[in-house]
């Protein structure tokens, strides 16, 4: 039974790389530093061995040719999901360039909230090691902010050793804390200003007002208990040596996320005139952070990219307009959206495979093949290991084969 250390977990964008994995006959289990996502992800069975065309088993060569023909015939293909590693994304971009396709990551709508704020006003941010080592005050904004990042509290808030932050961080929640957060903050006695939807935006606005001129503006009737809590949070902020606001677009109500994130960044701008305070957004799992980085350096556009005009543009992509779909889902068992267009699936999982025009099994990045992924902060990238000999190819390799069957000018 082989045991491997320093394994990077690709199943959320924290990319914890302190896992130990054991392999027995290609079945993996996490023997150190597991969380629920790692346990589930690494225990996935080996990818299917057979490709299929309209549900009928086919050789990989046949399936690749069918996928190429389908893409080439299509006038407006969409490469969707993009749940893959850096090389898979690089290959997808090359294929899109050659077939005038559009590309849309599965979590586009969430990352777009951060991008809008960035492109409108910029931002002040910190990476995970800064949060772990420096933050003496941490304010979570949203409901269950760390819910899909199971080890965030353990690794970065309750870290046994830090360079500067010590053991007595002060926490506050503007929104409803999740179970991991409440369980994880023993001894920290957080201030909780719970609220849903527009209440979070309103509370943030009240906090900003309080911090800028020392008093609550008259926003109608603010209950005394809430006012006291807001005062407490304002005191935490004022006394912070290095404060951090943590949010997660997926933990904010869709219709409020732009306002909340913009408002958080405005608050950070104000605060940094005199003291140090930074933001950290959790997001970008499922290859999302990697997609944003690679798409930006290769095309200049950080979100959905459309090659339909013969060159890359970033105006947005409407799935309803497309006439074929290449769906890449390397990390989760997610079927493609029901677009009712000819569909190719590249995935280790068979979700949607029997209905697809073409299904080609690929490996899980970081299990079946090596690779690279970017972390939630968009700064750190980590190597992924190959942990078993399943023979399942990387999405990049399959796309490379598809490309070799596509003739034509571009790329």
């Amino acid at each position, binding site marked *: 039974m082989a045991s491997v250390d*320093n394994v990077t977990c690709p199943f959320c964008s924290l990319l914890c*790389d302190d896992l130990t994995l054991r392999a027995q006959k290609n079945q993996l289990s996490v023997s150190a530093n597991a969380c629920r996502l790692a346990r589930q992800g690494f225990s996935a069975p080996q990818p299917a061995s057979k490709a299929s065309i309209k549900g009928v088993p086919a050789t990989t060569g046949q399936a690749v040719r069918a996928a190429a023909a389908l893409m080439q015939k299509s006038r407006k293909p969409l490469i969707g999901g993009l749940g893959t590693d850096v090389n898979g994304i690089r290959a997808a971009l090359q294929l899109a360039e050659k077939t005038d396709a559009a590309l849309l990551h599965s979590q586009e709508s969430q990352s777009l909230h951060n991008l809008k704020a960035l492109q409108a006003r910029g931002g002040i941010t910190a*990476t*995970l090691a800064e949060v772990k080592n420096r933050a003496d005050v941490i304010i979570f904004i949203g409901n269950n902010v760390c819910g899909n990042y199971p080890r965030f509290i353990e690794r970065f808030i309750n870290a046994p050793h830090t*360079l500067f932050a010590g053991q007595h961080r002060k926490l506050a929640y503007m929104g409803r804390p999740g179970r991991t957060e409440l369980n994880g903050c023993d001894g920290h006695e957080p201030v909780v200003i719970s609220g849903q939807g527009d209440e979070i935006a309103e509370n943030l606005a009240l906090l900003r007002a309080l911090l800028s001129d020392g008093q609550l503006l008259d926003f109608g009737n603010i209950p005394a208990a809430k006012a006291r809590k807001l005062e407490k949070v304002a005191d935490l902020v004022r006394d912070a040596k290095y404060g951090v606001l943590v949010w997660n677009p997926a933990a904010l109500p869709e219709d409020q996320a732009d306002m909340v994130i913009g408002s958080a960044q405005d608050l950070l701008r104000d605060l940094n005139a005199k003291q140090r305070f930074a933001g950290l957004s959790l997001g970008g799992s499922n290859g999302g952070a990697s997609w944003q980085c690679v798409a930006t350096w290769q095309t200049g556009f950080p979100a959905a990219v459309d090659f339909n005009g013969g060159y890359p543009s970033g105006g947005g992509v409407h799935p309803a307009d497309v006439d074929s779909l290449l769906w890449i889902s390397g990390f989760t068992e997610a079927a493609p959206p029901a677009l009712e267009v000819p569909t190719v699936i590249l995935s280790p999982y068979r979700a949607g495979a029997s209905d697809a025009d073409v299904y080609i099994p690929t490996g899980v990045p970081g299990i079946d093949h090596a690779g690279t992924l970017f972390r939630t902060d968009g*700064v750190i990238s*980590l190597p992924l290991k190959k942990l078993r000999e399943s023979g399942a190819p990387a999405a990049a390799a399959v796309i490379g084969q598809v490309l070799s069957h596509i003739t034509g000018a571009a790329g």
Partner: protein
Amino acid sequence: MIKLKGGKVYDPSNGIDGRVMDLYIEDGRLADPATAGRIDRVLDLAGRIIMPGGIDIHTHIGGGKVNIARMLLAEDHASNPVAPDMLMRSGSGSIAPSSFVTGYRYAEMGYTSCFEPAMMPVNARQSHLEMADTPMLDTGAYVLLGSDDFLLRLLQRNKDPQLVNDYVAWTIQATRAMGVKVVNPGGINAFKFNQRKLDLDESNRHYGLTPRAILSALLDALDAIGVPHPLHVHACNLGVPGNYRTTLNTIASAEGRPVHLTHVQFHSYGQEGDRKFSSAAAQVAEAVNLNPNLSIDVGQVMFGQTVTASADTMMQHRGHVHAHPNKWVCMDIECDAGCGVVPFRYRDKNFVNALQWCIGLEIFLLVNDPWRVFMTTDHPNGAPFTFYPHLIRLLMDRSFRNDMLGTINRDAAGASVLSSIDREYSLYEIAIITRAAPARSLGLRDLGHLGIGAIADITVYRPDDNLEAMFGKPEYVFKHGEPCVRDGKVCAIPATSTHVVEPEYDPGIEKSLKHYFDRYMTMSLENFKISRDELEGYNQHSLLVHDCRL
């Protein structure tokens, strides 16, 4: 073998100044016709000007900063799309272009090697990934040290200098770097403790260390481990009026040790006059002339929209009030360094911007020894690199320079000595500041010259009275002996390499590093390191390992 027949060759490393001669290329290198094989092809280059391929010693082309700049500049990308063709990939942008476009544009100006000057250790993997996606160019990077908590802890505890040497050498190897840069020594770190300024002899409040002490430790370390390129220094007080004193003190603090001061234009400001902003180019150039241990690059400013991207968060945050458009990014990064991105428009009718333009040119023209001044715009901070042909014309053509001087802010033009400087760079001197000198400084023994055995990276220009047109559109560019640009257009995509050095260290340093990583960092030491195999796997890249002094 290819024969390049009858061109006028400018090869300063070999003392060749416009001599008409033949060159021979075999197996990607310049060959001796006496011993080489048969001539397969003759290219008649009578009347043409031949130089080694251009080398940019300081250009922000790969890594987090420039990519964040790209994310911010949506407007520039939307209005400057680049379509693919049979050969070239697509992209966009004119200020911080996407990676493929960056490579093509550099090659189309005759450049063949570029060096990313500020690669953060924790961001090294991204830098190399981006540079692997930057075609046409061999690339390399200087790894950023001096505000990282590991080093500052070592220095604070006043440990054995050998540990510092080992740490520096280890970091160079682990991140696959070509040299070391320090940015506002200790200042990026001090900003995380809310310090807003730090001069050469002020202490970082937490560590009690001065920039002088940090500089000194790194200068000693680079000397000890034998890295050819001297410490690449972005000094304290970038952009602050009166900062030339800090610059002069920084030069003195090297005490004769080899040192490179980068984007010196931004560090040569006086405080004279009604506006309390003046040129101190003469003082700084004099110091360069008097200190043979010192080299500089200029960081020339050109007028128009650009974006500034720097690890110097302390000064970038201070400069955010000038952001145009008004959006800017400030990041604290991983107990390692930081990143500040501030878009900026340099205006020719603005006194300060116009004087910045003058100051850069004054430095070029007042430094006597071209072997110690390298041509840069600190892309994209002073201007995008695509301004190089224009900049060469400004240096070579006095009447053109004076015409331009007549169009800028009148008070700035009047406050500058530029109009009284007669000097015009020769082709030989241009070949020095854009090829031979950077290669020598970096220790690239077989690049930047055209002697027998050199790698055949060669640029061929068709003479033109308009030097901007000539340098903007080479007739041929050869990369590793193969033509890759014809008449200013890419005609082939050559294989490219990454330049690295591999200084030796005592592996015992990994014990303290592992302890530090396990306790404080958020990635393991093993995954931090970039192996040769990993780097070569990014894009079928090969490594060019350059010798360290023993």
